[in-house]
């Protein structure tokens, strides 16, 4: 019975009376929608997209420069660079001859899938190419944002300590490959590389781990071999 006048119409809703609505919507739904569109684009064109994530200063850009040089123009490469400010990294990449676009996130701490969609419109990568996305240097936030990539690759350097994977577990859990970079510095450090690897595997037992040095070239062949296998999978998925 209606509480206002005693009528039997219980369908009348008084404006201003609170009601509950069940929503059940993921907060990531919008990003995930853009990521799915990016992934369709990559898969449709047989493009291998890799999302490189790390702390600032792990040597990502130098590693990427060496990687592109070693691929030697046989495999067309494109790069999306993410930083809060400056276009320094994109300029470093362009000197290798690879097309690169810089995204400046301003105060933002990560790249999102919407930004990547626009960057792809600018880059217009050729079919069967490789797109490297160098994310903002941050081991926290980029873990949660799918960009539509085939794999997340964590780059961390030997100077960052054995317990880095335990301190920033989400990123290591989200990645398929870890490159332990600046391996040429190991003789000068007290770091326990076996413990470093064991800690990464504690977070993610399926993680592939390669030690690299962009400076000496150590481990670069293994990394290029991993890319080559991933490319075959990308081509097969087309």
């Amino acid at each position: 019975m209606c509480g206002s006048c005693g009528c039997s119409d219980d369908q009348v809703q008084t404006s201003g009376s609170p009601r509950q609505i069940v929503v059940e919507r993921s907060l990531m739904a919008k990003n995930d929608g853009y990521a799915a569109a990016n992934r369709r684009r990559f898969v449709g064109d047989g493009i291998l997209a890799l999302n490189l994530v790390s702390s600032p200063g792990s040597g990502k850009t130098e590693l990427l420069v060496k990687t592109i040089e070693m691929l030697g123009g046989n495999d067309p490469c494109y790069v999306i660079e993410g930083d809060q400010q400056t276009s320094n990294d994109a300029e470093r990449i362009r000197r290798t001859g690879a097309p690169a676009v810089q995204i400046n996130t301003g105060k933002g701490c990560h790249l999102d899938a919407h930004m990547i969609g626009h960057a792809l419109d600018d880059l217009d990568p050729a079919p069967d190419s490789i797109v490297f996305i160098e994310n903002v240097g941050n081991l926290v936030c980029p873990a949660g944002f799918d960009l539509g990539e085939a794999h997340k690759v964590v780059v961390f350097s030997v100077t960052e300590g054995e317990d880095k994977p335990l301190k920033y577990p989400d990123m290591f859990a989200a990645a398929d490959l870890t490159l332990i970079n600046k391996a040429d510095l190991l003789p000068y450090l007290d770091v326990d590389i076996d413990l470093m690897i064991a800690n990464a595997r504690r977070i993610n037992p399926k993680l592939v781990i390669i030690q690299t040095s962009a400076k000496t070239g150590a481990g670069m062949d293994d990394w290029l071999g991993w890319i080559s296998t991933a490319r075959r999978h990308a081509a097969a998925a087309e």
Partner: protein
Amino acid sequence: MHEMSLCENIRDILEEQARESGFTRVNRVWLEVGPLSCVEPDALRFGFDVVMRGSVAQGAAVEIMTPIATARCLACQHIAEIKQRYDPCPQCGTGPMEMIQGDALRISKLEVV
């Protein structure tokens, strides 16, 4: 501070729901935040108040529900609650655990006018 951009997502969803369901004000929002979702509830509350200004949810209360995180042992298949991603299996003590649930970020329900 990706909590701010998550709050912007919340605001967009609430504005969309307001148009679809015909309400003009949100009194209360129930969020499900998994303990392993890499989101700090306090930062989310702070961002929420700032981002909702001028929207249908200005001044709305936030209720954060934290479900437990569970994982399956890759060695003995035992399923248990975990507090961190690297917790060892409580059953066999050796195997690494693979998370089943615990990283959800969801708006579950709203109280609206």
